[in-house]
């Protein structure tokens, strides 16, 4: 199993699957290619989902600093989903601190069409 990510647009459609070289079961490395995808699609971005294989749907310190850095670069807030085998939690910036991200209350459209494929890609190793 590998950590895998997907970039989602404002309508819940997949923009980009992200399974870079160097991904492991617990980490996705920094990748300029992912930043380029976010930048190119910035006007239509909904957010980014990634998998915590075997872990809890809670952002790590690396996750939080990536959330904050990407939003600072884009100049806008996104939804950051974290998926496990059984859960999907959406995190959004709640403030006041730069790294204060809280779970967003469940919304119907968060029953995401892309979730089964995201989990499947994580199981298959990208």
């Amino acid at each position: 199993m590998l950590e895998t990510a997907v970039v989602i647009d404002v309508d819940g459609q997949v923009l980009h699957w992200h399974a870079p070289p160097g991904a492991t079961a617990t980490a996705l490395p920094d990748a300029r290619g992912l930043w380029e995808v976010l930048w190119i699609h910035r006007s239509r971005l909904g957010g980014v989902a990634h998998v915590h294989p075997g872990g809890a749907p809670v952002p790590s310190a690396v996750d939080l600093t990536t959330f904050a850095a990407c939003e600072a670069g884009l100049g806008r807030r996104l939804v950051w989903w974290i998926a496990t085998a059984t859960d999907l939690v959406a995190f959004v910036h709640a403030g006041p601190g730069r790294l204060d991200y809280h779970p967003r209350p469940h919304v119907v459209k968060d029953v995401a069409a892309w979730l089964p494929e995201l989990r499947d890609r994580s199981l298959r190793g990208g």
Partner: protein
Amino acid sequence: MNQRIDAGQARLNLTWNGQNGDLPDPVPYDASDAQLRAMALEALRNGDIPGIHIDRGARLDDFVVDRFGPTATMPWHRIFVRPKTPFGGAP
């Protein structure tokens, strides 16, 4: 903008707050990542990057540096300061 980029220098580009711009003056290509972030941050806080609004409270925590060599169409070194994108590790 200083259009002349000598050997050993680079054009530095920053992305911030949905905007993107080049520092007007070239930077040393062999400056460290920390030094390059500091140059970009000073320029950003002073409003010295065309295309990016001044932001006196800006921080470039968790921004990384990409370096590219000369190409046929852009025969000079280029440096990009942009947000990092890793995920993972223990909560």
